[in-house]
């Protein structure tokens, strides 16, 4: 999620080896014989160590709350637990982050564990976002890289110091390998054996980070830390939380976006066995019951009259007509170079195209849900797959009338998210808190979404319309490109607006077009907001989920118009973008791009950067009448230093599958304001029989690592579109693909 403008990274973001360790960044805490070490967030308030001088454990300034911040905990039982400040919703961050620590610590992979951090923005903020603890923008590895390397290296140094103390040998003679410290005299000890003593050691003023050529874990195949708990049914997700005496709540939300409750008749609902209470909150009407089945039956029995005076009443076709009207007028300028309109007027070969993109639901496998319980002292415990703890804590606290420190969040495994669990207004936490506030708060409440609630519940990837014109120059390059996008901003009116709006343009709406890498002397990109009460949100890869399709299909059109090979055509325009070139060449080579294909088959290519990760894909398709089978997708990815190659591969497979599923058949449409789809029968996900063979190649790199959760999504739809064109000569521009238009091809 989130546009990369939010995640701008310094160019000099290379490996700092060795690096001086700012002692202010390190916090050490011992307890119960364990070594606990953390790296404090830069920009935090000053710490007493400034005055205390070197060599002392760091204590918070008097009056500050205690900060048990720890990223690494080494226990006497020889386990090393990494406190993970990010949500793992499948992307593998509970494997990736421990790998970084284990590498600098020289731990054995088998002793590594992971634990989700509590909600605490001061200690566990995302350094890419500012003072917010949160997961998104494929930023987890990037923003943790240096922080966790230092944490691992500092813990290693303290273990060595403990060995030196114990064995009375020089530090230079102590070696560490796979969780064991050794001296040539034959002395040896495990981390666990030295943990207590290590905790007494001073925090080193400087740590030496490894030279990447000495990495022994990073870049190798390691099993995911969660590979066992997620295959035997023991992993606990939010939906599995069970508190004593807990009630289950389902919320009836307005049938139209922008609607509100006018009146409720809950008599029949209350008569259902197991229904305990019915409460009206600003977000709808909630039924609380002893179990999910009773709650759902109770909700079905509600009779609610809605006030739709401020609601979205349009159907999808009317919305699109409105978007097209807007697209005929000038919008806010997102990018401008030269004079595109003038150049288009005077060019010979002009290609025009339009694309429509539907609203999309995220449909994570585990529907949204969270549990709240009130403690005896009036504070609250929330249990959830919390993706934006800082926001959720604030929203829950405000709704319940307490300060945020009275709201604790226990984060558990999340069954997918794809952006849905992170909202600028903490939506489902707000719903749950509002429901809780309406009860006597004596019983814990578990608010659950049904799949229908999920599909109909909004927070969609916004609908978009793109109108484009581009012209070739006489050398086979691109003379001009004029691009208008119409689509709703989900940043407007949120806390993110000041950061995300650049000169009147929502950067997340135009990312991937306004900053496209191709050398185009005359470029004009404009955007129109298309406000609606329909709630919208980032969806895996955000703006790139539509802009890559528009740009990369247009590039294919232009290559075709220039009678050039689509790879060569792109390469000629990517001279200043070596990482685009690297992945494009690698994917083309591995796929044998350009080889002769049998009739009815074709190959298509696309390359796209998102979140500073570069991905190229070649799709091989077979088309029979209007049936398209995607046979194979060859992927090349450059995400800097590959930390866990197998996790990278998995994210490319998953990203391509997620993007493909949406492109094949997913859309949310409206009939007079009512969503047409409801569940997986009408919003059918990709299934095994749709899944192509996926072949992933990782570009070796010494650049700082970047994320892989989202960048596998954008190139898949255009690669498939372009392959279908190669097979049939027909263009599939809009999403989902209109396969019927291929009939008779």
């Amino acid at each position, binding site marked *: 999620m989130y546009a990369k403008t939010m995640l701008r990274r310094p160019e000099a973001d290379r490996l700092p080896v060795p690096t001086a360790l700012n002692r202010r960044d390190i916090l050490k805490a011992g307890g119960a014989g364990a070594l606990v070490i953390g790296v404090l967030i830069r920009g935090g308030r000053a710490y007493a160590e400034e005055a205390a001088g070197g060599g002392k454990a760091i204590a918070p300034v008097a009056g500050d709350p205690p900060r048990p911040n720890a990223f690494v905990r080494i226990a006497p039982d020889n386990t090393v637990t990494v406190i993970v400040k990010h949500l*793992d*919703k*499948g*992307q*593998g961050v509970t494997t990736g982050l421990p790998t970084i620590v284990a590498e600098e610590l020289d731990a054995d992979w088998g002793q590594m564990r992971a634990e989700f951090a509590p909600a605490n923005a001061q200690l566990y903020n995302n350094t890419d976002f500012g003072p917010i603890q949160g997961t998104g923008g494929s930023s987890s590895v990037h923003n943790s890289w240096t922080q966790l390397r230092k944490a691992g290296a500092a813990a290693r140094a303290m273990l060595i110091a403990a060995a030196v103390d114990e064995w009375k040998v020089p530090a230079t003679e102590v070696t560490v390998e796979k969780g064991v410290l050794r001296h040539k005299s034959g002395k040896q000890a495990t981390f666990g054996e030295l943990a207590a003593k290590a905790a007494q050691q001073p925090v080193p003023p400087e740590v030496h980070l490894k030279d990447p050529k000495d990495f022994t874990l990073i870049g190798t195949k390691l*099993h*995911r830390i*969660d*590979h*066992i*708990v*997620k*295959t*035997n*049914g*023991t*992993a*606990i*997700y939010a*939906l*599995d939380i*069970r508190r004593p005496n807990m009630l*289950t709540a389902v919320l009836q939300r307005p049938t139209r976006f922008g609607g509100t409750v006018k009146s409720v008749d809950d008599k029949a609902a209350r008569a259902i*066995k197991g229904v305990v209470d019915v409460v009206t909150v600003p977000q709808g009407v909630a039924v609380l019951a002893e*179990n*999910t*089945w009773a709650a759902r039956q109770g909700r079905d029995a509600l009779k609610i009259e809605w006030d739709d005076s401020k609601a979205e009443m349009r159907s999808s076709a009317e919305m699109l007509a409105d978007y097209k009207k807007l697209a005929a007028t000038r919008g806010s300028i997102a990018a401008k170079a030269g004079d595109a309109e003038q150049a288009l007027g005077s060019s010979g070969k002009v290609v025009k195209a339009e694309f429509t993109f539907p609203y999309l639901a995220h*449909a*994570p*496998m*585990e*529907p949204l849900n969270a549990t709240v319980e009130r403690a005896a002292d009036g504070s609250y415990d929330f249990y959830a797959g919390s993706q934006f703890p800082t926001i959720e804590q604030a929203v829950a606290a405000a709704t319940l009338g307490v300060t945020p420190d009275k709201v604790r969040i226990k984060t558990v*495994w*999340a*069954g*997918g998210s*794809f952006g849905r669990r992170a909202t600028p207004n903490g939506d489902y936490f707000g719903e749950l808190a509002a429901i809780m506030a309406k009860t006597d708060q004596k019983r814990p409440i578990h608010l659950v979404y*049904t*799949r229908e609630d999920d599909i109909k519940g909004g927070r969609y990837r916004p609908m978009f319309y793109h109108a484009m014109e581009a012209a070739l120059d006489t050398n086979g390059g691109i003379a001009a490109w004029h691009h208008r996008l119409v689509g709703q901003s989900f940043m407007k009116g949120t806390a993110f607006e000041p950061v995300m709006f650049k000169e009147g343009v929502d950067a997340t709406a135009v990312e991937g077009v306004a900053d496209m890498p191709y050398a185009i002397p005359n470029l004009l990109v404009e955007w129109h907001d298309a406000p609606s009460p329909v709630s919208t949100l980032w969806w895996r890869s955000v703006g790139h989920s539509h802009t890559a399709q528009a740009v990369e299909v247009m590039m294919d059109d232009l290559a075709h118009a220039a009678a050039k090979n689509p790879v060569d055509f792109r390469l000629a325009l990517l001279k200043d973008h070596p990482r685009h070139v690297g992945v494009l060449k690698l994917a083309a080579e591995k796929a044998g791009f350009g080889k002769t294909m049998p009739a009815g088959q074709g190959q298509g290519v696309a390359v796209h950067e998102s979140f500073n990760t570069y991905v190229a894909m070649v799709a091989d398709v077979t088309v029979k009448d209007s049936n398209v089978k995607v046979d194979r997708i060859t992927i090349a990815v450059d995400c800097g230093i590959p930390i866990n190659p*197998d996790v990278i591969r*998995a994210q490319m*497979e*998953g990203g*391509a*599958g*997620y993007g*493909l*599923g949406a492109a094949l058949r997913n859309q949310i449409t409206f009939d007079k304001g009512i969503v047409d789809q409801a*569940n*997986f*029968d009408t919003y*059918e*996900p*990709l*299934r*095994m*029989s749709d*899944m192509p*063979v*996926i072949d992933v190649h990782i570009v070796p790199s010494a650049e700082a690592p970047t994320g892989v959760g989202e960048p596998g999504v954008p190139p898949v739809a255009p690669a498939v579109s372009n392959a279908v064109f190669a097979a049939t000569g027909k263009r599939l521009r809009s999403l989902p693909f209109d396969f019927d238009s291929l009939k008779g091809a």
Partner: protein
Amino acid sequence: MISLKINGSTHALDADPDMPLLWAIRDLLNMTGTKFGCGIAQCGACTVHLDGQPVRSCQTAISDAAGHEITTIEGVNGKVAQAVQAAWQELDVVQCGYCQSGQIMSAIGLLSQTPKPSDNDIESAMDGNVCRCATYGRIRAAIHDAANRLA
């Protein structure tokens, strides 16, 4: 009272006979390894075995499950189950993992019937199990791997 035999133990439940088995398992018996995904037999997350056959527990009323041997992810054992779980672990199939109880229950059902499944056999047995993380390639590979382990 409805009596259910789950993973070898008998549970007496005072519940609506129409209640889907899924909610009885999850909410009344607090066995949460079996997951809810859709409630309409479209995703397979809730797959359990009824007398060894994979069924969707969200569409099986407890009154229909009574009198049968019900097995959930918590209770699977035996050669096939072990081979399937070992293959899943070896190939690091899981991402979010939420669908995987259901995937594994379906795969055990398939391999118990068809020890050496073809790609087509795998697709027809597994197409009803949705994975939003799209781990399908690895699921397919893990089923072949498990078949080899059992051979």
